[in-house]
Structures are given as structure tokens and as C-alpha cells.
């Protein structure tokens, strides 16, 4: 069996206390929220921090506040997020993304901040220590080479977060706090296209909240490809957010998930649609343009050429959905899940 390696456990009660502990030794300290990403990685010795700073005791991180949009604490669980009527009503794409993360158990544990900062994934990395040792490791941990493309100077592990592409499409920002102060960056700038240094978050910074701008006039949708309907990481995804004036698109963003080491903004595809009515022809042109920038690698589930082709379909489905087409049958075919709202959430509305 796989035991956790030893570590020093710290349970701060305030963000300031957490930032101070993190600042003591940022390179060897990791933040623990839901534990659903960090603890498996620690068991497989992919991540071996000497200190773990647990954020669970900081109650202010688990709140969702109204304002000009929504301010979502980084410690809000994914179950809490999808149970929130404001999210369901105003940010359907975010609801669809969060509701398709993992399983009910894992959503009860995993947090929005954790999903945003989710470690990148790869066939050659997400393995136990002995497996990785048998191939002399890879550059992401303990080794020198990238087994996905042996001449690659950088790690090609895949961004596998569902909420990040959607939050990026919605124009969300994140607040980062350290003992040096606080800064707010767009979600788009939180990521870098490098499987190892995929976050621009500094080692001493804590993601404390995610602010989603007001949704007035905006529609959003998230489409995900995965092996199993029950649960799986995305192997391709499309997040679309658009503001309409009648039938005309005033503003639109398309962000692809799981086809790069970061959420990938398809700006040229989005530009094709801005200022236009969403005709079938334009949707197809934009979907083709978006698929053109997808760079899936052969390091996760499914065949990569097919994944790239599927990006075109996912973008097309998302655009049809925000246009108002009835996509329920198609969504059920792909997600193989009703994506039902728990009774408690419906009651809250």
C-alpha cells in the first residue's frame, strides 16, 4: 500500500497566518485544501513537501459573496459551488464545468481553488514511484527527459482542470496573497504553457478568491470529452462565454481545455463571431479555427488525432448551445449523465 510520506502539518486560522507559514520555506511547502489532488500525488511521491499548510480552518475562504458579479472563496467545495443557485442561474457554463469534475465524493472534498491550480497530468507522470523509476523518471519529477516527445525542451503534461477554461472564458480574476501583499490577476494570466511551471503563482502566494464579473447579458457553456460518463479528467474541452445584443454577438471568448499545458484561448476563432449573428456556417468556421490551435499530445486517454477532431465538435456544440439550440440530447450522449441538481440545491433557489 502507498503511505503518505512524512510532513509537518500546519493549520492556520487566518490567511495572514497561512501566508507567514508558507513564506518560511515556500519551495518545500504545499497548500492543502480538499486534498484530492495533493494527497494522491504525495502517495505516489510526485510531490513531497516537507511542510503542508492546511487551509481548511480558514473559514473566510469557504464563502461565496455577491457584489459586482460573484466572489468565490478558493476553499469553496465544488459541491457547494454547484449547489449555489446564483452559479446555476447566471453562470451555467461554470455550473456545467464544476458538475463534471470527478465524482460526488470528490466534489464534496475538492475546492475551486484546488481545481484551478490542479497539477498538470501525463501518462508518464501520474504513476507510482516504482513505475516512474522503471522508466528512469521524467523531467516533471526526478528525471531529465520528456517521454511524450523526447526532444522537447519543456514538459508537455496536460492542463486537466475543468473550471479554469470556463473561468478564463468568463473573464474571471484571482486574488493572490503573500506576506509581500496582494495582487489580482486575470485567470488567463495565472497560467503558463509549461507542464512543470504551469502556474504564474509565486511559491509564497495563496489563491484566496476568484472573482467572476457580472453575468448580465452573458451566456456560457462548457463541453467536455472524457472516457467514462461517471467521472474522468477532461481529454478535450471547450468553454464558451458570449454577450449578446439580441441575436448579435457583442463579445465572445472561446477557451479550450486539456489540449495544452494551459487553458488555451482561441482568439481568432472568437473574432470570427464577434459582431455577427451566430449562423450555422459561422459556427463551423469558428469551430475549425479553434481546433486548429489545439495541440493534444499522446500523453492522456484517447487517440490524439481524434481528440483534436473532437475539439471542433465540442466548440461547435457549445456555440450552438449558447445560441439557444436545444442540445440536451447531444449533451446526454456525450456526458452520459443527467447533470441533475441535488434536491437541496433546488430547494435553495
Amino acid at each position, binding site marked *: *500500500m502507498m503511505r*503518505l510520506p*512524512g510532513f509537518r502539518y500546519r493549520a492556520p486560522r487566518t490567511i495572514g497566518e497561512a501566508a507567514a507559514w508558507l513564506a518560511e520555506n515556500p519551495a518545500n511547502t504545499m497548500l492543502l485544501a480538499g486534498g484530492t489532488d495533493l494527497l*494522491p500525488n504525495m*502517495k505516489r511521491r510526485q510531490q513531497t513537501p516537507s511542510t503542508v499548510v492546511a487551509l481548511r480552518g480558514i473559514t473566510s475562504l469557504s464563502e461565496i459573496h455577491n457584489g459586482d458579479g460573484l466572489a468565490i472563496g478558493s476553499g469553496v467545495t465544488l459541491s457547494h459551488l454547484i449547489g449555489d443557485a446564483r452559479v446555476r442561474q447566471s453562470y451555467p457554463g461554470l455550473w456545467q464545468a464544476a458538475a463534471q469534475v*470527478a465524482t*460526488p*465524493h470528490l466534489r464534496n472534498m475538492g475546492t475551486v481553488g484546488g481545481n484551478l491550480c490542479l497539477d498538470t497530468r501525463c501518462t508518464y507522470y501520474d504513476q507510482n514511484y516504482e513505475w516512474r523509476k522503471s522508466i528512469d523518471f521524467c523531467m516533471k519529477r526526478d528525471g531529465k527527459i520528456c517521454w511524450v516527445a523526447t526532444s522537447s525542451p519543456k514538459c508537455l503534461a496536460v492542463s486537466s482542470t475543468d473550471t479554469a477554461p470556463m473561468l478564463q472564458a468568463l473573464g474571471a480574476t484571482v486574488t493572490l496573497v503573500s506576506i509581500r501583499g496582494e495582487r489580482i490577476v486575470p485567470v488567463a494570466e495565472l497560467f503558463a504553457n509549461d507542464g512543470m511551471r504551469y502556474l504564474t503563482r509565486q511559491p509564497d502566494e495563496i489563491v484566496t478568491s476568484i472573482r467572476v464579473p457580472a453575468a448580465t447579458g452573458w451566456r456560457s457553456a462548457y463541453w467536455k470529452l472524457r472516457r467514462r460518463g461517471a*467521472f474522468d479528467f477532461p481529454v478535450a474541452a471547450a468553454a464558451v462565454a458570449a454577450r449578446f445584443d439580441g441575436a448579435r454577438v457583442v463579445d465572445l471568448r472561446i477557451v479550450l481545455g486539456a489540449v495544452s499545458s494551459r487553458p488555451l484561448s482561441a482568439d481568432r476563432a472568437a473574432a470570427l463571431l464577434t459582431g455577427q449573428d451566430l449562423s450555422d456556417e459561422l459556427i463551423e468556421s469558428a469551430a475549425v479555427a479553434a481546433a486548429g490551435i489545439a495541440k493534444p499530445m499522446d500523453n492522456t486517454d484517447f487517440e490524439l488525432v481524434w481528440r483534436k477532431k473532437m475539439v471542433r465538435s465540442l466548440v461547435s456544440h457549445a456555440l450552438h448551445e449558447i445560441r439557444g439550440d436545444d442540445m440536451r440530447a447531444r449533451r446526454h450522449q456525450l456526458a452520459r449523465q443527467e447533470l441533475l441538481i441535488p*434536491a437541496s440545491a433546488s430547494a435553495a433557489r
Partner: protein
Amino acid sequence: MKVRLKCTVNQEPVEVLADDYKTLLEVLREDLQLTGTKHGCELGECGACAVLVDGTPVLSCLVLAVESEGRRITTVEGLAADGRLHPLQKCFADLGAAQCGYCTPGILITAKALLDAEPNPSRARICEALSGNLCRCTGYLQIVEAVEAAAKAPR
């Protein structure tokens, strides 16, 4: 290092001295001898280790034991009361919802949380609630039918 952990397990107050790197699953099985909760994939993929923490289903293989301080834990051993099986247990036995039985404790505990929150769930809701519990024997049909039967049984 050992840490002193105080919590409630199956409605009984518990105090235990456990290694600080241990998961809740390891403390339940190794320090409290509650081996009903099963040790499956260890990585949060199979649902065999599901327990309720303050009434919510979570995977005990991914909960640090130290983070269970002061919490209310329910394991499969806490389902039967006064020598009588919980309706879910009875229906699982009557309808053949368990074969090898390894996934059963996790499924029972997850189904209990569902029925506590939603006494009459639809079949789709049952499937969704149990979507994190893998069973390699039954094909799931008997499991879903047993949960439906338990929902109808007097409690």
C-alpha cells in the same frame, strides 16, 4: 510524530493516538480496528473507502486523520442499530446487490447519505450519487434496485 485525535465515530466519542501522516482510512482500520471501511485504490478513484464526515460522503483515503478532529464520522459499522440491519443493508442482502462485497460498505454509506438528504430519489439521482463507487461484480443494476427498495422500506 503521534498526534492525539478526538472525534465521534458511529456516535461514540473516540480518542486515539495516531501517526500524523495517516489518513482517516488508516486510523479507522489500523488504530480503531474498524475494518468495515475498505482500502481500495488509495488514490480517490474507487469509492471503497467512503465514509460520512458530518453527514457528507467523502473518501477517507484522501482525508488526513488530523483533519477529522472534532468531526462526526459514520462508517458502515454504524449503520445497524440495536442489532437490526439498516434497510439499505437488508435490501442489499435480499436483492443480491453484493457479490464479492468489497465495494459494498462504500456504497451503503454513500446511499445512506443520499436517502438521508432525499428520501425518494429518482433512479437517475441514485446513479449519479453512486457514480463515484466502482463495483466490478454486479453491473450496478441490483445495487440501484436495492437502494430504490430501501427508499420505499419503512424506517
